[in-house]
């Protein structure tokens, strides 16, 4: 039986100054958890900035 190899190519869409699209569904990710747990650490950090 003849084997058929299928190659799917995806075009990389890049530009030097692309438009930014707004999508309100991204609000669902506002409080997303980070795997490293670093976000929890950052919530305890005190920022003592000189400016």
């Amino acid at each position, binding site marked *: 039986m003849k084997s058929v190899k299928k190659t799917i190519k*995806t*075009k*990389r*869409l*890049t*530009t*030097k*100054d*692309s*438009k*930014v*699209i*707004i*999508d*309100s569904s*991204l*609000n669902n*990710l*506002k*409080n*997303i*958890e*980070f*795997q*490293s747990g*670093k*976000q929890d650490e*950052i*919530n*305890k*950090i*005190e*920022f*003592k*900035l*000189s*400016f």
Partner: protein
Amino acid sequence: MNYKKYALIKNELSTVFNFVSVGHKGNFRKVVVYSPTTNSNVYNLGFGDLKYDLSKKKYIIDDQIINDNGDIRIVLATVVKTVYEFTSVNPQITIFFRGSDARRTNTYKRAIMLNLEELSETFDIFGARMIDNNKIIDEPFDYKKDYDGFLIKRKRI
């Protein structure tokens, strides 16, 4: 940064961004999140791959993954574009960012160093030093020094 960038999708407040990294290992959905900290003038930049955690039964951001997708410059330039977007809406906010490990933090330092002249036209950039286990102080950015993170703020016009 005069590099190619991926097309961005963001929420109305410019606090959450999404783009797709396309490289030789495949397509990876990246998310950049700006979240408030204990200091109302400082937001944290978190970044990684969006993935579904089967044990937690919810989406999380994997900020420890190494994709080796061959597009690190495009990915970093796209993240920098989110910094421009976020600070154009919130010019008074300082952004804090660091890698999930020392190697990543060092990669960010190299990226700053290589583009310092251009970034400095728009931003003041500082090294962030952790003291007493939970306090961050700022120092003038010096590429010869290692930092615990970085602080970036729009210059006052």
